[in-house]
């Protein structure tokens, strides 16, 4: 059965249809949540919250063809909500320049999975959400903007900054493995 038919059934309260829909998406949602939150347990909480919200609110989904985008939006919002609740302190962490002039080592460094993994940790959850929506879930930037409820220009600028920060974090990785004090939600 195609997805739209399943969505229509789920909207009418068919729980089996809902289960089939979310099982098909579960691995993707879990991966996105782990990338955004960088914590498997938090990701688990976020996805569980997502599924509960999805079941509760799917009758209000106007366009069944937008189910995936809607589910992604719920997931990202759940991740960011969890991140906010977990935040102990939001300021007093060192800023790195946006556009450092040295880029020569990036080619080799970015090929290293571990380096990118570490670089992702340097981004705030909002920045990670944009990267994940665009590069992992394959959303066009306009849809990322709609999903996060921010202007397209803001998405572009934040993505640009995120990529710049990732690059710098990769370059400075040996110096930044010490715990970040007073820090961001990781």
């Amino acid at each position, binding site marked *: 059965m195609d997805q739209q038919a399943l969505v229509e059934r789920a909207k009418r*309260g068919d729980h089996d249809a809902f*289960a089939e829909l979310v*099982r098909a998406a*579960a*691995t993707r949602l*879990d*991966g996105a949540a782990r990338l955004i939150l960088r914590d498997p347990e938090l990701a*688990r909480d976020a*996805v*569980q919250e997502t*599924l*509960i919200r*999805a*079941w*509760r*609110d799917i*009758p*209000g*989904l*106007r*366009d069944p063809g*937008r189910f995936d*985008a809607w589910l992604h939006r719920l997931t990202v919002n759940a991740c960011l909500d969890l991140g*906010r609740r977990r935040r102990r302190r*939001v*300021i007093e*962490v*060192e*800023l790195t*320049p*946006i*556009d*450092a*002039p*040295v880029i020569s080592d*990036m080619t080799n460094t*970015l*090929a290293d*999975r571990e380096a*990118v*993994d570490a670089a992702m940790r340097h981004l*705030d959850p909002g*920045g990670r959400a944009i*990267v994940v929506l665009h*590069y*992992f879930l394959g959303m066009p*930037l*306009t849809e990322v*903007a*709609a999903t996060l*409820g*921010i*202007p397209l220009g*803001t998405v*572009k600028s*934040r993505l*640009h*900054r995120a*990529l*710049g920060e990732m690059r710098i974090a990769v370059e400075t990785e040996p110096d930044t493995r010490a715990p970040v004090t007073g820090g961001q939600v990781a």
Partner: protein
Amino acid sequence: MTTPTRLDHTLPAILSDLATGPYPDYVDDAIGRTSRMRQRPAWAFPERWLRMDIATRVAPAGRLPWRQIGVLALIAVLLAAALAVAVGSQRRVPNPFGPAANGLIPYASNGDIYLGDPLTGATRLLVQSPETESGAETSPDGTRVAFARSVAGTTQTDAFVVGIEGSSPHKITLKPIDHLTWGGWAPDGRHLALVHDVDGSAGQCPTTICTVGQLDLVDADGSGHIDTIATVRGLSYVQFSPPDGHRLLYRALVEDKWGLFEMDADGRNVRTVVPPTVPADMGATFASAAYSADGSRVFFNQYTLDASYGQPGCCQLFVVNADGTDLHKFIPNTSGAWDGAAVVSPDGKWVAFWHNDKPAHGVSVIRADGTGPIVETGPSLTGTAHWIWAPDSSSILMFPDGTYSGKAYLLDPAGGTYKTVPWTSSGDLDWQRRSLD
């Protein structure tokens, strides 16, 4: 090949690799839990089914004494009309540039548009619809609000204008605009300047910022009339020149180098303000150029390899005469600080700018002539931020990028205490201008 291009190519595969994992074993438990939960009934989502103008209309209830209501309503209308004429005849509006009195702060939250009063903390809903609204900006005279509404499931956006009191909402774009990247009121208050990527260019671009952009001036009255002013590689914004708005400042890519340019408001007479010399991948260069309050000078941040300016790289804050003469570094330090993103106060006396001078990173303020001390204000930040001045120049409204609390900060330009506004928003910043009278 630029670094962003490499990231574009490698990140999807690496992220997929990082995210790879077994089927999450907790999902079936979660599904089981939902089976015991009730769904919200469909009728509980009226906003998803009704058009905005219908959803926001108050439905009459019960049988009412229409004759008495009619007489009272007629009296009320006459009184309101008389009052409106009396008040309207005395009404003054601020100039599009220069100091003004502080009004309300429009903001987007959860895809709807609100107005917040920074003095009382009171907020009110201005626009609500099933779609996502954003980018609220008050007109130069403070009487209307322009905003964008995403077309669900597309890369397209419609532009709307609504009265500051919520009256006469109307769409000003005859058809949705694809890849809208920037919008702002023209100083005459009769047009919106909209910048959007030209169809088909996004996929040909090695970075997210070097697409071909088109500047349109769209009538704000809803007539649908559009004047295409210019189509420029790398165009991402324009700034209207004080005091008359007759010139437009913009950045552009020329042979893959960033330059800063001016043109007349009709797109003619292009002039070079700063020649194109900065490589395309240094995208923060000229990203926030701004006129001085009198329009005679331009502040901008630029990538530089000149170590005598302090830290080589991006960026340092420069100023240049609008005719391209007397280009020089604006912030007098050689400490390696990252300076940029200048915003000039409406009274023309101050410049608020990003000052990344370890250990403090955040907004700093300096006199617009570059003299005097650099005053750091507001919190130190983990990431970047964006900000605007209050119309009366008494404070700075700043929103940190990233998640934070979702609240904007009100900063004291003199470096005093700061606070957050009581509402959360998605980060667009604007402040209604009111007459000083």
